[in-house]
């Protein structure tokens, strides 16, 4: 039951975020805002699908490909958004610290694969690794003149996502103050903060 409430709160938050970012995309005719709308939209559709399976049939999908596809798409849109905002010259010379991101996701993927599915965990590791690499690379440029708001938010988002996944491996009971629900709520709260972060990045 708590999972359904958590999903419902996330859906409501994402619906507001989609509306705001779509409105800005139409107002400023901006690709960045459109990509953000697609990110929120993909995440929202994945959540709606998951929640409706629970509501209509009382169980999560047997073949969880559809929701996963939606969440893969969300990560791709977020990566493309970061790429769109990053100036091209920054993309060439990556600091060695940037490789910590992919290294972390590979390590976590091995941990998750021991406990669960192999293919989906590999795809998530690849996409999250790419996202973390791009975010860290943008946070530590040689001459620090760029806005760091968006990469910081993406970094927080990725870490919260990993905390959520890791906590789901250890705590499965439906208690309100167990780490899984706390991280889920924190992740939900993280979504709206991407809007001002994009706003700043676009303005810069």
């Amino acid at each position, binding site marked *: 039951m708590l999972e359904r409430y958590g999903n419902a709160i996330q859906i409501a938050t994402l619906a507001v975020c989609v509306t705001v970012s779509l409105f800005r995309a139409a107002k400023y005719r901006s690709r960045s805002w459109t990509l953000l709308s697609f990110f929120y939209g*993909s995440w929202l559709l*994945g959540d709606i*699908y998951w929640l409706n399976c629970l509501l*209509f049939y009382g169980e999560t999908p047997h073949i969880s490909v*559809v929701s996963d596809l939606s969440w893969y*798409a969300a990560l791709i849109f977020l990566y493309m958004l970061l790429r769109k905002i990053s100036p091209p010259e920054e993309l060439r010379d990556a600091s060695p610290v940037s490789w910590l991101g992919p290294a972390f996701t590979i390590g976590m993927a091995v941990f998750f694969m021991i406990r669960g599915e192999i293919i989906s965990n590999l795809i998530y590791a690849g996409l999250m690794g790419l996202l973390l690499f791009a975010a860290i690379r943008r946070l530590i440029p040689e001459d620090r003149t760029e806005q760091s708001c968006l990469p910081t938010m993406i970094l927080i988002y990725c870490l919260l996502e990993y905390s959520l996944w890791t906590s789901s491996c250890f705590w499965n009971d439906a208690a309100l103050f167990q780490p899984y629900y706390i991280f889920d709520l924190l992740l939900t709260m993280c979504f709206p903060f991407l809007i001002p972060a994009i706003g700043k990045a676009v303005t810069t």
Partner: protein
Amino acid sequence: MSYIENIYVCLAAPMFLAILCLRKNSRQSLIFVLSGMTACLLSAYVSTYLAGLTRTDIVTASYEIAPVVEEVIKSLPILFYLLVFEPDKKNTYSGTLMVSLGFATFENVCFLTSYGTSELLRLLIRGFGTGAMHVVCGMVVAVGLFFLWDQIWLQAVGAFALLCFVITFHAIFNLFVNQSGVIFWIGSAIPLIVIFIYMLFLHREVDLS
């Protein structure tokens, strides 16, 4: 049991003859419609095969397997057109919509032969709902593909992401229309509302030149 390949032959034969007789633009449009119908036939086969392979019942397959298979196969004719003919935005946009149209039409014909033609209201909702859903999916892919990315590799990755996006939209639609009562109505109305909003606010913004 309905033999959809027989229905396909019956519908495709006059179209095929018309394609031979028509000139450039009309011929192209009709080829797209026929491709959409062929994609629908193929996806019915593949979905049934995968449902059997994973031992999934018809209802579950309709929202867990069919959306993935249908959207992937539906995108193949346009992908082929994009890669081989390198068309302009306008042609690709209308081509995508025509493929969706062919797909939705054939799906509705198969639905009619399977479930009968007695309930006009339900068929009306089904016709508009399914048609709108396929058109929305095609529109999202076509518009997104051309307006979000410039570089070719970004278009390829972006196309995959857009495909994932429309698969989930399709799956949610199927999930809703499998229910009865108000949920069925809401499910059918969602794609129509999306098309309405698109026509009202975004249609003029999309520059196809």
